[in-house]
């Protein structure tokens, strides 16, 4: 797969199927995730894009009756994230996630960002301080919260909470960062801040983002995948997908005739 001309891959779905009990939610998905790029997943509600996203950090393992089939290869070590022998906790140590609704823990701003570091056993106060500061700066929220690190995170505004959640995910240096409609609960200004942030973050980390907002996909992503009814209809460079989609269904969705 990794030919000299193609950009490096961070992950790749191969013949990936997913089942909620007996219901097949994802059908034979094959798709590359390019390293240090933003890949957007678009499609109408219920098309399986969130289901697909949540497979990358094995979130489906939390609920009984879910089943994966096929592979999600993770590079450079070429691990199959879905292999039965792979511990979902190990996967989540490498893959961060930001959710649809900001979900800061009922702790201080500092402890929220330090959470993942503490989970990984970091006890050194100096290291914690440094990494928390770096993560908050990385999430463009440091200036707003540096004087209230001990305040409850739940007292921040919605947009600040979401950037705090991004800082929380960044603090542990994930290799892949999953965004599940991260701006759907935010106002336009907070949305703009998050989009700008996503754009900056791809210098450091590979990003996979689910969005309902096609302008957002066009603005922030390098690659776009259109999904429909659990299938991957079309995948390509974002410009190509939006300017000259190959599939009629993609075109209908993008031009607003469907969905």
């Amino acid at each position, binding site marked *: 797969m990794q030919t000299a001309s193609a950009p490096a891959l961070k992950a790749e779905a191969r013949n990936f199927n997913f089942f909620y009990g007996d219901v097949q939610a994802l059908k034979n998905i094959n798709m590359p995730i390019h390293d240090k790029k933003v890949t957007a997943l678009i499609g109408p509600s219920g098309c399986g894009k969130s289901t697909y996203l949540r497979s990358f950090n094995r979130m489906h393992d939390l609920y009984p009756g879910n089943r994966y089939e096929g592979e999600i290869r993770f590079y450079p070590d070429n691990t199959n994230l879905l292999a039965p022998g792979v511990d979902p906790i190990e996967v989540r140590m490498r893959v961060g996630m930001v959710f649809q609704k900001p979900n800061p*823990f009922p*702790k201080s701003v500092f402890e929220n960002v330090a959470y993942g570091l503490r989970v990984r056993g970091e006890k050194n106060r100096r290291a914690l301080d440094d990494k928390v500061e770096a993560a908050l700066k990385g999430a463009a929220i440091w200036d707003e919260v540096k004087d209230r690190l001990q305040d409850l995170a*739940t007292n921040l505004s919605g947009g600040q909470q979401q950037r705090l959640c991004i800082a*929380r*995910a960044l603090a542990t240096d994930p290799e892949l960062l999953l965004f599940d409609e991260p701006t759907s609960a935010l106002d336009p200004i907070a949305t703009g801040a998050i989009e700008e942030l996503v754009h900056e973050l791809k210098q450091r980390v590979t990003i996979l983002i689910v969005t309902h907002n096609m302008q957002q996909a066009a603005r922030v992503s390098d690659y776009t995948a259109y999904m429909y009814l659990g299938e991957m209809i079309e995948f390509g460079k974002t410009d190509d997908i939006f300017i000259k989609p190959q599939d009629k269904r993609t075109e209908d969705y993008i031009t607003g005739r469907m969905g």
Partner: protein
Amino acid sequence: MNAYAMSASPPGGAPVVSDRLARNAMRHASERVIETLLFAAAAVSVLTTVGIVYVLVSESIHFFQNVSIVDFLTDTQWTPLFDDAHFGIMVLISGTLVSSAVALAVAIPMGTVIAIYLSEFANPKVREVAKPILELLGGIPTIVFGYFALLIVTPLLQKIFPELPGFSLLSAGLVMGIMIVPYVASLSEDAMRAVPMSLREGAYAMGSTRLYTALHVVVPAAFSGLAASYILGISRAVGETMILAVAAGMQPNLTWNPMEPAATITSYIVQVALGDLPHGSIGYQTIFAAGLTLLLITLLFNILGQWLRRRFRENY
């Protein structure tokens, strides 16, 4: 729009009250009746409380006309029925507090651990079976628990502590704790299950284990509910009567040692109330003074609970 407006007021005639409005008025009357009934039901419970407080306070006033409050609070003996009568309520308070402390030392850790297990670890089938059974434990009459303490737990404890007397605060307190576990566990579990799944998902997504998620995210998020369950447990312990009357002995004894027998406020009241004290005598009035003290203690804990709940209420 115009057609509707015209049909509402007939041309030329004075506007009439539509029958729709009349029906509204009828409904209003029946709602008044229902409202009054509901208010009456609520008033009964409030008035009962007011009545109880009134009786306690008025009888206690008679008592405090004979015994000074300073003596009541500082005397180290409680011998209201002796010729040389002493009225040191601390004697009974010590028994109440020691037995409650023993009970809570059992009920709060066990209840919390059970709640964490049921809410975060048990699979749904286990939970559906285990929780009703647990709650059944709360339905066992306390007199049964009392004899369980006296006839089973005390002899067992005596194998470990040979010097333990036949009646002790330790034995009664332990069993009282077991009795309270279901209340604490059930309410704590409700509080933890009310923590939104999105918080747990956030914690798992950071790579935490189940235990780490439970202890570092779910428990802090549910803390106000946990505090409420603990306060309920305390109230149950302070107010519990039969277990202590049966298994703790009834002799007034100013002690902070759970290995000793002692009377509590409640077991004293039961003991005296069963006797044949003449109405209006000082011994009779001690019941009310003791009852008022008990009421104030539970009130104190309830206020503390309210405060904790407000202080730690989470907006997820």
